[in-house]
């Protein structure tokens, strides 16, 4: 897919895609470039199996980035992702140790713990007016503390339930991994909410100017609270899927998802100041980040080099199209 065919397709697409940011087009163009670069290293890079595998890996990040995007659209940020992910995974696995009822309730329980973290964030941001960056860091620390106490500082011994493994690695439709289907469903739901419901309009409104949204009769504090709760829940669900993928939860399993989820949202053209951005962009950002990670591992880059390239690429791409307008 090149930019010209994207334009051709765009004219036949629904309105919300046609209005998409140039940033989204740039992100897709970068994906194409990455695919070309990757195919130079390995023949199998463009094979359908490999691409589908990438999409499966991307779907974990996609689920987490969906929640992050909702919060970023409000002009806030959720830095509690790492331990919301780990808490979701650990609590789901822990619930599985309590007999058949526990197994049945493992996934909802894991998500509920994430929602609880999100609700604390939401109360802090919406009702106590604490900067989101600070309160989410604090809840992240508390969640970490709780998990350290719970696990005794070791990797938890409980393992994922069959249902979690099925969601993360199984196939309902032959050839399409379940994780991808889940991401598609969540994506469709968030697109519907953002574009077709008053809640979605309120999110964009608050992101642009909370004061104006409040004066228009929107209960802005409730909207912010719900958005943070959803973000926490989706992070935890991402953790549940990851636990299913790896068969168990691990300490600091979520650390690798904070920067990528923010980067995916911002690279997808969503303004970090809020109020502007489309889900299509986030999808592009998630795929972009996943491909970048994949290429770096195909090149057998050590962890140190990966971190450096990763940070440099994100700064470079943001400098390309993520800059704030020149002041005044």
């Amino acid at each position: 897919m090149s930019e010209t065919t994207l334009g051709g397709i765009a004219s036949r697409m629904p309105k919300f895609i046609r209005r998409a940011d140039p940033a989204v087009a740039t992100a897709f163009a970068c994906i194409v470039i990455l695919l070309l670069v990757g195919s130079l290293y390995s023949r199998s890079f463009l094979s359908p199996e490999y691409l589908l595998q990438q999409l499966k890996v991307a779907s974990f990040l996609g689920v987490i980035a969906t929640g992050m995007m909702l919060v970023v659209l409000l002009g806030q940020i959720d830095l509690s992702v790492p331990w919301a992910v780990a808490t979701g995974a650990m609590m789901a696995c822990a619930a599985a140790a309590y007999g058949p009822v526990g197994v049945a309730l493992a996934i909802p329980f894991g998500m509920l713990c994430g929602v609880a973290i999100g609700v604390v964030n939401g109360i802090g941001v919406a009702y106590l007016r604490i900067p989101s960056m600070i309160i989410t860091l604090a809840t992240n620390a508390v969640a970490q503390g709780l998990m350290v106490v719970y696990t005794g500082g070791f990797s938890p011994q409980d393992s994922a339930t069959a249902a979690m493994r099925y969601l993360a690695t199984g196939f309902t439709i032959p050839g399409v991994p379940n994780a991808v289907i889940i991401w598609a469903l969540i994506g469709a739901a968030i697109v519907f909410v953002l574009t077709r419901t008053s809640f979605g309009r309120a999110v964009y409104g608050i992101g642009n100017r909370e004061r104006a949204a409040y004066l228009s009769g929107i209960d802005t504090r409730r909207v912010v609270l719900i958005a943070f709760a959803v973000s926490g829940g989706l992070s935890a669900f991402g953790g549940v899927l990851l636990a299913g993928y790896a068969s168990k939860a691990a300490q600091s399993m979520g650390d690798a998802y904070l920067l990528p989820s923010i980067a995916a949202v911002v690279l997808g053209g969503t303004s970090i100041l809020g109020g502007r951005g489309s889900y299509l962009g986030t999808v592009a950002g998630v795929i972009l980040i996943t491909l970048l990670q994949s290429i770096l591992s195909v090149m057998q880059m050590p962890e140190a080099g990966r971190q450096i390239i990763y940070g440099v690429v994100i700064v470079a791409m943001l400098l390309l199209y993520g800059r704030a307008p020149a002041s005044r």
Partner: protein
Amino acid sequence: MKDWRYWLAEQRGTLLAFGIFIVMFAIYSGNHPAGFTANVVQTAANKGVLLAFVAMAQTLVVITAGIDLSVGMIFTLTNCMASWLVIGTGLETAFGLVAVLGTGLVCGAINGAIVIYGRLQPIVATIATGAVYFGLALLLRPVPGGSVNEDLADFLTGRFFGVVPASLVALFVVVLVVWVPFSRSELGRAAYAAGSSETAAYMSGVPIRRGKFLAYTLAGLLAAIGGLFLTFFTYTGEAAYASGNAYTLFSIAAVVLGGVSLFGGKGSAIGAIFGALAFRTIGDLLFVFDFDPLWQPLFQGIILLIAVSLGAFALFRVRNRLEWFL
């Protein structure tokens, strides 16, 4: 308003942090099995000074209404670097010191350049540069190791005249050399003005860009001094992701405890230092009361949560609901 009342209002956050620290330290040393001795003070000072340096670094950036989520990683990077360079003869050690501090300055300047001239949001930009700095640290020290000039290390972590912890003296010197000139300079005031109201500062012809740039750069330097001291205490360099992140997080907690406004334009590094010392003492209270160390992360997290929630009391003073939204 009378002069002293104005001064009191301006320093309220700092004095509060000082008060919290004194009370906490009294409880700490009162219940410590060894009591209030030079040894206890020295150990506490050495631990607290590390966070104090990083918290000072964070303060400089927070004053400009920004945030530096890479301070912990600069701290880690300079620790790894010092474990290679600050060793050998006097001249070699001196060269190593300059190189390490210079690296800190460059890291801070890169952050500043990206945020100010690149016009990126500080949160995203410094998370990304933090990843780069951590990658470099990992490149330098894939496994923990290295060593440091032990004479210098022992001198700076020991005691003067048998009672005064040398690390506290070093902290005091850094405050005199870095913070006092900065806060009294034109560019320092520009950094405050930019944090208070960037538009108004711009309209008044204040050099906000240079002020902010200086703040970010000096923040890198202060984080590097912290990294240097970490090397002096541990004699090794280690690229530990969790520890770098923890220092970033604790620096924010210390800044908040120290009465520095996260919205910018208010507070001082002195307050942040007492905030850092208080935060460390509170964290160590668990040990003197014989709790399982496993509970420490949770305990620190809860203190952090309470500290950041304290700011919410300002809401009670809000007369018009529209003031909820900045």
